[in-house]
């Protein structure tokens, strides 16, 4: 891992071997930005390269996932797959019961080779009903959702201040949007980001 990091660092800072495009400062050229092919999916048709559902079982490097439309997906995690669970995480954190969204490439045998997997990610809007120790009680359409602050991870984004780990400016009664990691089978969420209107 360290050598790969050193390789990447030297690519960035010193123009090491294998650099395709790099900038001392600022952006890549427009040819890089427009280099990606547009997804080839007909409107309204399901995207074959996407899967969602809850993990039923984990076998070696494959997740068996039951989609909300009762379709099973086999999702293969490879070394380059990014996993998210309140932040970048490792494969051993994927547990049966976790919800997920996955994007990757559908192989001929039907397995989705995942490029990115987001575990338990949720995006909720609501009103702050109350704030207690390390917790925000969110009212989401009459349902109470308990949002936990995770020190070192949770970030607040205010409209008039740079993002920071300081959630103390949130007020009871205000409207917020919370992105976070659901704790499976509860009404509780660990906060990744909370967006505040002020």
């Amino acid at each position, binding site marked *: 891992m360290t050598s790969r990091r050193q390789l990447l660092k030297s690519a960035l800072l010193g123009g090491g071997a294998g650099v395709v495009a790099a900038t001392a400062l600022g952006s890549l050229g427009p040819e*890089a930005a427009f280099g990606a092919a547009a997804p080839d999916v007909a409107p309204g048709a399901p995207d074959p390269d996407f899967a969602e559902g809850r993990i039923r079982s984990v076998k070696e490097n494959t997740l068996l996932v039951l989609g909300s439309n009762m379709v099973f997906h086999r999702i293969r995690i490879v070394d380059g797959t990014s996993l998210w669970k309140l932040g970048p995480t490792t494969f051993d954190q994927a547990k049966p019961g976790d919800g997920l969204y996955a994007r990757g490439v559908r192989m001929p045998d039907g397995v989705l080779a995942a490029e990115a997997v987001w575990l338990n990610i949720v995006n909720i809007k609501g009103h702050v009903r109350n704030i207690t*120790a390390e917790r925000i009680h969110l009212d989401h359409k009459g349902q109470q959702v308990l949002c936990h602050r995770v020190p070192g991870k949770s970030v607040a984004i205010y409209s008039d201040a740079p993002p920071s780990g300081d959630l103390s400016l949130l007020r009871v009664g205000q409207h917020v949007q919370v992105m976070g990691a659901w704790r499976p089978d509860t009404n509780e969420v660990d906060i990744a980001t909370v967006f505040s209107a002020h």
Partner: protein
Amino acid sequence: MQGIAALQPYVISLFLLWAALLKLLDRRMRAQAGQTALAGLVGPARAVPALRLVGVLELAVAAALLLPPPSAAEGVAAAALSAGFLGYLAYAHRVAPTSSCGCLGAHSRPVDRRGFVRAGLLLAMSLVAIGAEPYPMDPSLVALGLAEAVVLLGLSAELDRHWLTPLRRLRVRLRRPLAPPSPGEVPLEVTLRLLYLSPAYCSASALLTSDVQDTWDEDGLRFVAYGAGRRTAVFAAPLAGGDPSAVRVALTEVPALT
């Protein structure tokens, strides 16, 4: 007990009077009638007339209770009205769990336990009021009446913004349950936000095929690696400072695989 029975008509009637006047006079409440469970019960087109009808009924019962002489029929009417409220709440909870009840002013909160307790309390008070006979008021009865009114108001979610929200705000200000963490550690999300705003990320984002694969801090910089097809995109963002133009990016042939 006679005193308590004699007291109930006053408390109930004042509460009903308030509910009736809101229904009959509050323009905002009429405007939101379509979003209440009442609209589900009688149809959206008839929601406003139904709201007015309930308001008139409440006004009539309140007037009968308030004006002498007391009679058992008044208590029965109030009890019937309260039982109707309870039935309506049960209907709303079952059939339209996301609609508000439209009981006491406009708000968007669905029917909850407090609404049921309030209607139940009103029903109990109405049943007690059936046996009401003229009885001289004394300070202890007045205090009890006030206490009942406070409980009824406390159970009204419509009024929370006037007392519960400020109270909670005060408690948050005093106790600081989300006191800022110790400075020094920069959460990854803060860096990612800076990244998203940077010209470097904007120019490379179309190539990215994964989320964050790896991240580490070195020399005051935070390195963030993403998969970009068979390649890897690595960003370096300053840990301190918020200038997006300081973010650098390189697209390398180092495979995404480790």
